[in-house]
């Protein structure tokens, strides 16, 4: 198994923008304090040097295959196919099993790659933020493997929640810093990490999704796209052609671009993103940046679609901590704005029912985040309702962190 090389097929402008030519909207950029400019330049230069450095890339790819185990299966799901209406009505549904990575989600791919880059560039320490410690855990594991120090910034409210991945981050030796600003959740934690980046010149900031100031949205999706590059080859080998559709969940957009990026110019493959509608879009308690009518805004160094509360950023609400984010990555927002990616939503309750269905009928304990996409995908595939289609759903994580919350759900719904 060799990881297919990266090809840039959706470059931003020199200034780091993806521009919608019709609406003139600009996505991305680098909206940061002047004090951060040199740090970002160092990362940006280093990143472009590294991805052209054969030795670095060969080593990185080898470690992704061995340590992270990126060569996870793509396989036909008879159960989901049946559930959606059967092969004769809807074709076939396939799963990409990203839940089988070390640390059990897509996050470790970009986390490990980013930390490897940091080491390559001579940084001694990593700074990152986390909401539910999915990214925290992934970065902690990478830092332990690579011998780097780590500060994880986490909102004080999030830090109080019981979370197995929080304990695992601590076991890896990470230093966990609680952030007491603002909503005490993911957004202020990201801001805090960015601020720390401004104070610690020997540390490199690692972002948990395809968000933040340039070069991060580019860097994360480039590294993460290993998943899609492998998938594209696997799917062709297995099915003989590219998928008709690819469905991913979207919090920030990293698991989505990780698999959809190599298909951006694949005309016959329709791309879908699923956001969390929380308690329902109408209740206002949701995490759907696009579905909930997000506007252009500037936060965390980027310009993108954002859920606003006046001049500030609105809090998002969802029971999937990985989707608890009031914005989306700029490249994702751009792709949505030009119509390349279609957005859907699923509510928290629909996701939890899907979790139970997957546990009972498919035998898999899926990350709750993945359950939003499975629900919405089946609904949409039924709507498409054409035979001979090959649908691909990204099973982007395993559900151990959700067991306590699902046991409660099961008890309530006995």
């Amino acid at each position, binding site marked *: 198994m060799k990881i297919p090389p990266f090809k840039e097929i959706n470059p931003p402008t020199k*200034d780091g923008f993806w521009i919608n030519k019709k609406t003139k909207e*600009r996505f991305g*950029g*680098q*909206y*940061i*304090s*002047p*004090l*951060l*400019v*040199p740090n970002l330049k160092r990362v940006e230069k280093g990143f472009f040097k590294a991805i052209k450095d054969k030795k670095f890339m060969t080593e990185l790819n080898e470690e992704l295959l061995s340590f992270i185990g990126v060569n996870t299966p793509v396989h036909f799901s008879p159960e989901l196919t049946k559930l959606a209406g059967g092969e004769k009505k809807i074709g076939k549904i396939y799963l990409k099993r990203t839940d089988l990575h070390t640390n059990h989600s897509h996050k470790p791919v970009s986390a490990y790659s980013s930390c490897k880059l940091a080491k390559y560039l001579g940084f001694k320490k990593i700074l990152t933020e986390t909401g539910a410690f999915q990214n925290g855990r992934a970065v902690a594991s990478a830092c332990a493997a690579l011998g780097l120090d780590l500060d994880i910034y986490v909102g004080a409210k999030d830090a109080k929640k019981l979370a197995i991945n929080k304990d695992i981050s601590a076991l890896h030796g990470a230093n966990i810093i609680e952030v007491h*600003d*603002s*909503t005490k959740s993911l*957004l*202020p934690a*990201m*801001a805090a990490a*960015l*601020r720390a980046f*401004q*104070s610690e*010149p020997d540390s490199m900031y690692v972002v948990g999704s395809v968000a933040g100031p340039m070069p991060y949205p580019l860097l994360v999706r480039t590294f993460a796209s290993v998943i899609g590059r492998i998938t594209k080859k696997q799917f062709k080998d297995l099915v003989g052609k590219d998928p008709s559709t690819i469905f991913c969940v979207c919090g920030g957009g990293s698991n989505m671009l990780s698999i959809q990026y190599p298909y951006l110019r694949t005309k016959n493959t329709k791309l879908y993103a699923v956001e969390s509608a929380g308690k329902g879009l109408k209740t206002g308690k949701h995490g759907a940046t696009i579905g909930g009518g997000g*506007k*252009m*805004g*500037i*936060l*965390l*160094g980027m310009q993108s679609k*954002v859920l*606003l509360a*006046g*001049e*500030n*950023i609105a809090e998002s609400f969802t029971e999937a901590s990985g989707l608890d984010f009031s914005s989306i990555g700029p490249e994702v927002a751009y792709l949505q704005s030009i119509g390349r990616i279609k957005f859907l939503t699923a509510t928290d309750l629909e996701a939890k029912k899907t979790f139970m269905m997957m546990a009972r009928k498919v035998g898999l304990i899926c990350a709750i985040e993945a359950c939003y996409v499975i629900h919405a995908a089946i609904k949409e595939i039924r709507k498409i309702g054409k035979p001979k289609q090959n649908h691909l759903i990204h099973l982007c994580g395993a559900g151990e962190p959700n067991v306590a919350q699902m046991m409660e759900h099961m008890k309530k719904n006995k």
Partner: protein
Amino acid sequence: MSKLNILFKEAKKNKKKIFIGFVTSGDPNYKSSKEIMKEMTKSCQIIEAGQSFSTSTSDSPIIMEANDRAINSGMNMKKTFKLIKEVKRETKTNTCFVIMTYLNPVKIFGLKKFVNQCNFVGIDGVIIVDSNLNSPEEKILINGLSKNKIGYVKIISPTNDDEFIKQSIKNCHDSWLYITSYYGLTGSKNVNINNVKAMIKRVRKYSKDIPVAVGFGVKTPSQVKQVSKYADGVICGSTIVNKVAQGHKKRLKGKKLATFVSSYVKKLSKGIRK
């Protein structure tokens, strides 16, 4: 010429330095904040009024807390304009007012509407911490503000390269260049005089006359004095905001809080005249 231009020019002619006080607008609430600013006009030649942004990426914990107090009390861009307008009307002060904020609140308020309001209220300058030198937003702001003779301030810091400094000087309009005395967050360290000297030297390579003011870590009258030997202006921020927090914790309000804060600001400002 803008009011800020005139201020720095006059000061230079008289070999005097400018004292700039930063305070978060609406901290701890509209009423008390208004009293604080009114009192501060007595000792500050320039007041930087910080319009809070909840997801600020460059403030010290001290200012983050002030942001939270202001936002929770209902502060926003519109109210900041109203507050400054009232302060100006009620004090008839000569003090210049500069709004310091992030790009999102300005963009959501509307770039053009923002410029118009600045003009209408009589704002003398604008600092937008996270405005990118090359962004279209920056161009629109510079254009709009300079048409109205409102100053536009850019920040530079010791780790910025010469290219960045050159471009920042270019983007600065009718105002001053804001030099941070060290690499890090506001209020997190003490002022670094060697950095200040070196930075001013670097600036002078590209501009003989742009006024420079120094902030970050200036916390005592003697530090004010020290910095004022080299810079045209001295900015005190976190240390003043910290005083507001102290007064607020003592449950001081309105005039009483304002006196508590401004007597401290006065002491700081005296550093410049020593």
